[in-house]
Structures are given as structure tokens and as C-alpha cells.
């Protein structure tokens, strides 16, 4: 993109040529800044990169980074009111702590469940009367034991030599309080479930997390806004974006504190008295990128995997082109 900024007007977006930075940036002088990170969330800035590259990472995170999820359920007995297929679907959506990088994709015509490509779970629960409950008790949660079937009842059953490699604590569901079914006294669930490695484009249960991006918003005050108008202006933007300071003449004037957090709403255009006072733009070569994990992979691991997948795509195609080039050379 050769324009550096997009101006937000009342009813349209106008590309604006950037005069401050050099007209054409090469793609090799981009920088990345990590703003904040923990195991779940991550926020980072891609500065000076083309948006198509950032979008590729987002698309890969949503569709191609692999995780483990339950894929097949063998239902031996299910007398609860949750139908077999509904229960199986719910099981599939449970995020697992299993690290997908230790596993392979299952082969197309595989019949057996191998230690290198699948994880086995067992769910055996029966709802029974709670002998400790008092006679006057009416709350069914206390009256019956195992009334709620939670993800914590999924028990890992090692296949082959998996006990040598994994510990039980790293194979359980990521959250142990996911409600799978509710049962009444005498109801019973007995099933076996197999988790495999898969990708998000096949089913959303395989998605490692969420990812989204936005361009850096910028706000410039063209003229001084004071008093009541300043308060009104402050209300037009996200909290913390505009603050009010007392200037040297003792007037309370609006000041841009931090445009980064602005939601880029155009509320300011509702008010004719202040709408000419601001210039809102977004920087097209400064992308704020977010990753949010809801799987075994940490947020930065997800992004790292995505970039590796992109490199893999290039490698595969490069080797294919080289084959063509060699063929041409031979003839």
C-alpha cells in the first residue's frame, strides 16, 4: 500500500498520502513491538509491514494452526436425557491440555488408534442418591451425587507407551468445570472418546484461539476546544483517549491523551459545533495484532506456529517451482 494513512470522514474513508515517512517503504525495514503478553493474551505491533502479511497470519491462526480435540466417541451406554450425538458434539468442543506438537496427523485410512496420533479418554458416571442428604432436602444438586457431569470426569487412558512420555496432569481437559450433561437419579453415561490432531478449517473445535488486528488510530485536534465543548468532545471518544487540561491561560481545553485505545467511532460528527475540530486518521502500516489463546498452546506459541506454517507454504511452493525449472533446463 503506498498510502500511509486513511482519513475518517463523516461518510467515507479517504486515503491520504503520507508526507512524514518516505513515500515507499521497503518490506525489509519493518519492526515488531510486543506490547503485552501472558499465556493467554498477546498484543503486538507490526510497524512497516504490508497488511496482506499480517492478514495471512490471522487467517492461518484461525484456520491452519493445529490442536487436539475429541473426534470420535464410542457410546456404550447413555441413559441421560442428553442425546448421544449432542453429547458427542459437546465432548468435541472441550479444549484439552494436550500439546499438539507431540502428535502427528492421523492417516486417512488408519483403523487403529495409535500412540503417536491419538489420545483416549473414558467417561463413566452414574447419578445416584446422596445418602448424606437430609430427608427434607429438595435441591437436586445435593439430593443426588454426580448430578452434573463435568469435563473433570473425563479420564485419560494412555495408549501404548504414552505413560512414558506424558503425565496425566498434561492430558486432561484445559478447564475442569465444563458442564457436559445433567443427569437424574439412576441415569448413566459410559463412553470412550478419542482425540486427534486437526485444524480449524475442518472444524472450529480445532482452533487454537482467536486473532484479530486493527490499524493504529490517530487523532489530531485542529483547533482549541474549551469548556463544555471539551467535555462533549471527551464523551465522543473511548474512555482515556481525550483528557482535559488547564492551559497557560487558565482555560480547560481538550487534549489527546492516548489515541491508540480509540474505537474509531464517528460520534463526534453528531455535533456540528465540534466536528470540525478533529482530524481522525488510521495508519495503514502500523497494525495492532491480537492473539488470544483458548487451547493448550500459549499465545506466543500460536503466533510462532502461524509464521512457521507460512514459511512451510513458501518452501513447498519453492521446491515445486524448482522442479519445473529443472524440467525446463532438461528439455
Amino acid at each position, binding site marked *: 500500500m503506498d498510502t500511509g494513512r486513511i482519513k475518517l470522514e463523516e461518510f467515507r474513508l479517504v486515503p491520504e498520502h503520507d508526507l512524514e515517512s518516505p513515500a515507499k517503504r*521497503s*518490506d*525489509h525495514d*519493518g*519492526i*515488531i*513491538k*510486543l506490547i503485552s*503478553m501472558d499465556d493467554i493474551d498477546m498484543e*503486538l505491533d507490526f510497524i512497516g*509491514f*504490508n497488511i*496482506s*502479511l499480517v*492478514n*495471512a497470519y490471522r*487467517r*492461518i491462526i484461525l*484456520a*491452519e494452526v493445529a490442536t487436539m480435540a475429541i*473426534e*470420535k466417541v464410542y457410546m456404550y451406554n447413555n441413559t441421560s436425557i442428553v442425546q448421544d450425538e449432542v453429547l458427542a458434539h459437546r465432548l468435541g468442543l472441550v479444549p484439552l491440555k494436550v500439546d499438539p506438537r507431540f502428535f*502427528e*496427523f*492421523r*492417516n*486417512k*485410512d488408519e483403523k487403529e488408534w495409535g500412540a503417536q496420533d491419538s489420545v483416549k479418554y473414558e467417561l463413566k458416571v452414574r447419578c445416584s442418591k446422596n445418602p448424606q442428604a437430609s430427608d427434607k432436602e429438595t435441591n437436586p444438586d445435593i439430593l443426588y451425587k454426580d448430578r452434573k457431569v463435568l469435563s473433570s470426569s473425563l479420564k485419560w487412558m494412555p495408549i501404548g507407551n504414552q505413560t512414558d512420555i506424558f503425565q496425566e496432569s498434561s492430558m486432561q481437559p484445559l478447564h475442569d468445570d465444563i458442564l457436559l450433561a445433567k443427569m437424574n437419579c439412576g441415569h448413566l453415561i459410559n463412553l470412550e472418546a478419542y482425540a*486427534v*490432531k*486437526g*485444524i480449524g*478449517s*475442518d*472444524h472450529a473445535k*480445532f482452533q487454537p484461539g482467536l486473532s484479530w488486528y486493527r490499524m493504529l488510530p490517530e487523532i489530531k485536534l485542529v483547533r482549541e476546544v474549551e469548556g463544555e465543548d471539551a467535555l462533549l468532545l471527551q464523551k465522543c471518544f473511548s474512555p482515556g483517549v481525550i483528557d482535559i487540561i488547564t492551559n497557560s491561560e487558565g482555560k480547560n481545553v481538550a487534549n489527546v491523551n492516548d489515541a491508540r485505545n480509540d474505537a474509531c467511532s464517528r460520534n463526534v460528527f453528531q455535533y456540528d459545533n465540534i466536528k470540525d475540530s478533529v482530524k481522525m486518521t488510521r495508519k495503514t502500516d502500523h497494525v495492532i495484532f491480537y492473539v488470544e489463546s483458548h487451547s493448550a498452546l500459549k499465545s*506466543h506459541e500460536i*503466533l*510462532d506456529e502461524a*509464521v*512457521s506454517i*507460512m*514459511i*512451510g*507454504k*513458501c*518452501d*513447498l*511452493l*519453492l521446491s*515445486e*517451482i*524448482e522442479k*519445473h*525449472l529443472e524440467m*525446463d533446463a532438461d528439455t
Partner: protein
Amino acid sequence: MPIGADGFRLPTVNEPGSKNKLEMIRGAGQDEYCRTFVINEEDHTLGNALKHVLMQHPAVEVCGYTVPHPMERSIHVRVQTKGVPAIQVLHQSLTTLKNQNQMVKQMIQDEVTKYKEDNSSQ
């Protein structure tokens, strides 16, 4: 990407009998400097990024990509060049894209280690 019998996708392997990853459209209007490449098992993820890198290449006159049908996983990349054969331009651009990705990967890793170091002391 092929989807296995059990529903989940297989990794990016070239199975025997599957289509070639890269094909070239033959016919009138196609020559060494003006080619339409068919890349199978790819979509906008690679297509858009590749198009932008191709546009930066000095030998490229025209280039663009399209997804001919949303249910078929393939993209058509058209490259029209001056002086250098189109396939070589594609090769060079892909190398550029790969290097750029490797650079990004390295920068992310550096930033993550730095961030961890800065925040472990607190």
C-alpha cells in the same frame, strides 16, 4: 488441504494421485513472460501476500490472483513480466516472502524473550 476420511485435515503432504501443487495454464496468450500459474491447495492466505510481494518486483508489469471457485481449493496467479521469465520472478518473489517471514519469526522470538526477561524480575 485434503480432508481425511474421518473429517479432519491431513498435513500438507503430496499424496500419490493428488494434483500437482503448481500447474501452468497452457494456451493462446500464454508465453514465458506472461503466465497464469495454478497453485493447488492454497487460498487468499498465500495468494494475497504473494501478490503484494510480486508487485514490488521491478520486472513485473502486471500481476494478480483469483480464486476461480470458492469450493475448489486453488488459486490462479497471473504474472506478466518484462525481461525475466515469469516463473523466475515467481521464484524470486517467493524467496523474498519466505525471507520476510523468517525475519518476522526471528523478531517475534527476540521480542518474546526480551519481554519475558523484562517481566520475570518483577
